[in-house]
């Protein structure tokens, strides 16, 4: 791994050469780092040609999440089964998902022990409540009454497309669980845990010294970077794992239910078009920088990833809240058919996820756990969404407060302009 003097010289020469033609102070295109060889896909191999990339643990957890989400709306599912999958890594129909890896052990992993326990209790609570008020309570959807203010129930979608099931506050707990995990699991693991681990002095020294993890083809720093990659792209079809955008950027081809799916959604909006490629380029460039022992560059790329993925959470939180407001404005039918509360439920989960973001300029989350708690209390107040349906000013205020912290406007996030 150690840079040879020749390589050092050539990098220096490359910089000097590029300096000559840099009179205009032109911006270096993202991903184009002088002297750094960045592959066109996420493929990294050692001198023997063996792959040094591995993120199977992340793929496992994302798939576990997808199976748990199915159970969340399957009547007859017990709390015990859900707990077993979520906390114990056992009981999955796809047997390859059973084992020592669990989602719960990674939820809010970077939080203080007290805050972490609080977050985990929230997810445990979603499971318990969903089993209690719906899955263990009723045999099937037909047995559930229509939801009314303050009462658990179903909302029938238009055109016989099935039902949305909501708690007494009008909240779909499966949405809260799903969108909350995007922050508490995927985003937190990427921006606060694994990318940060690649910035450790010991990890970097081991990487520079070419010290491989015992029995593996990679160093710790390389592996941690790949694990970050895995929490975003790990659920992709196997043949495009190294180039996920080539297939999954089409809405119909999204297989992930977590962060990647909403990166794709942000990409669909003309205001944010290009974000998916920027993130992918940053992942490749940063990984190449680690191979080249260039930790200034890998940190720069990590910060791009932190900023962009954090922004995805902010964009989707604002988008869904504003969509909810828009549908409420269309009239009672949009509440009766579940559309309005469905959007608000997704927004609720993304709002919860805000506490796991990472603003690279401060190293802190865009919103602290206490601030997020404040938002959630406002969304839960009285009869929750039923109450907010008569007070959309409160929803608009929340959307404004969120957008104000980010580098986008409410208008950009809420607009449905299709990307060209």
């Amino acid at each position, binding site marked *: 791994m150690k840079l040879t003097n020749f390589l050092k010289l050539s990098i220096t020469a490359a910089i000097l050469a590029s300096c000559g033609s840099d009179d205009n102070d032109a911006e270096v295109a993202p991903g184009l780092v002088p002297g750094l060889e960045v592959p066109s896909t996420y493929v990294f191999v050692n001198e023997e040609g063996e792959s040094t990339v591995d993120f199977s643990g992340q793929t496992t957890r994302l798939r576990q999440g997808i199976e748990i989400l199915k159970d969340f709306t399957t009547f007859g599912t017990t709390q015990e089964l859900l707990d077993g999958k979520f906390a114990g890594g056992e009981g999955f129909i796809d047997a390859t998902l059973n084992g020592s890896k669990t989602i719960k052990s990674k939820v809010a992993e970077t939080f203080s022990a007290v805050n972490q326990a609080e977050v985990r209790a929230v997810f445990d609570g979603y499971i318990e409540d969903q089993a209690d008020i719906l899955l263990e309570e009723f045999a099937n959807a037909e047995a559930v009454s229509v939801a009314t203010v303050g009462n658990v129930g179903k909302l029938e979608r238009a055109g016989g497309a099935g039902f949305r099931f909501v708690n007494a506050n009008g909240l779909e707990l499966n949405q809260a669980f799903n969108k909350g995990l995007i922050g508490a699991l995927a985003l937190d693991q990427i921006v606060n845990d694994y990318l940060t681990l690649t910035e450790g002095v*010991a990890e970097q020294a081991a990487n520079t010294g070419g010290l491989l993890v015992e029995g593996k083809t990679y160093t*710790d720093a390389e592996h941690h970077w790949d694990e970050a990659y895995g929490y975003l792209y790990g659920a992709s079809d196997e043949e495009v794992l190294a180039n996920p955008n080539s297939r999954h950027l089409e809405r119909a081809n999204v297989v992930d239910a977590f962060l990647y799916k909403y990166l794709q959604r942000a990409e669909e909006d003309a205001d944010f078009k290009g974000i998916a490629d920027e993130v992918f380029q940053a992942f490749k460039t940063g990984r190449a920088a680690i191979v080249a022992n260039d930790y200034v560059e890998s940190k720069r790329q990590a910060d791009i990833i932190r900023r962009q993925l954090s922004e995805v959470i902010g964009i989707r939180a604002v988008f869904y809240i504003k969509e909810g407001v828009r549908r409420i404005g269309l009239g009672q039918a949009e509440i009766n058919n579940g559309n309005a509360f469905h959007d608000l439920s997704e927004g609720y989960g993304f709002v919860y996820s805000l506490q796991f973001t990472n603003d690279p300029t401060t190293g802190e989350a865009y919103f602290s756990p206490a601030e997020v708690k404040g938002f959630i209390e406002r969304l839960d107040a009285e009869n929750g969404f039923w109450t907010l349906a008569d007070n959309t000013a409160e929803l608009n205020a929340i959307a404004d407060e969120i957008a104000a912290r980010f580098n986008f406007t409410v208008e950009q996030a809420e607009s449905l302009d299709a990307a060209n």
Partner: protein
Amino acid sequence: MKKCFVLLLIVMSFFSCDDDLVSNEENRLFDSVGFLSNVLTNHILPEFRTFSSDVVDLIEAKDAFVVDKTIENLLNFRNQYLVAYTSYQSVAKYGLGRSATINFNQNLNTFPFNLVELEAFVLSDQSKELTSVNTQNRQGFPAADFLLNGLADTDEGILAFYTGENGTDYTQYLSTVVDRIDSLSEQASNDWEGTFGNEFSSDSEFFNLYVNTYIQYFESTLRTMKIGFPAGVNTGTISPISIESLYKPEESRGLYLEALASSRLLYTGINEEQSSLSKILINLGEEGLDARIKIAFLEAQSQSNRLNENLRLQVETDNNEMLLTRDALQEVVRLLKVDLTSKLNVSITFQDNDGD
């Protein structure tokens, strides 16, 4: 053009960082040799001497019990075990030199004690040797805890194991456990009293290693093993059986507090005259950081005092207090690992264990 120049500087400074590390060590702004020699004289040697003498008493109590298996001798044995386990807490933070090569801490204090197929193990030759890596979790103080406190609910019941059908094997296992504590302690202690102690206290190269060992102990053993694991911080599921002193759980907090107090004393120093990490920071003009570290230690201590003496009970009844303790310890870890090391120009050379 300016941008490129900066980039070039960055790259150049990166290339030369190997040389920087060397010169930093030579040009430290404080007397690291004086510090190390103080740590040896005022902390390591006295603490090891106390521990060694407690282990001698433990051996005597064991011998008395082996010769005459009475309740009285069992109680005396148990007392001596606790005395030695308590003074062990102080020497556990010096896992370098011979202590590292003989896996001193792994052999003396891997917990929880492994119970699987216990009887077969007691009857096997393995229990009479305990030198294999596979038996690290079947020896040391956790094994003594089980053999003296956990074999049965009553003292009579415990005694019966040593006088009953397989009494010879149980006695021999217990004897081997205690003898091995003695031999490992002697090796570690002799090393500090002799060659390694001399090297350590006269070579500034050890400053880095010493600070790393100290912080790693505080993070991995004190914070994670003693508090974090039982509180379920990693898994999200509490694990009451992961406490230290599982078979006499009412002693678990006492052992932990001993370790914390001793770690704190190592930071502050035993008196005003002696060098210490705290003194070094103050001399560097970092009184603010020193004060923050001292406050964090005090807060960790005061939060820990709120815990039930029985940590198992604490986890089972009100785990939040354990989590608060873990967070208070984490604050110390953060200050030591990030702030202190950057002021002292020490690179952290141990890695976070976090992968899958």
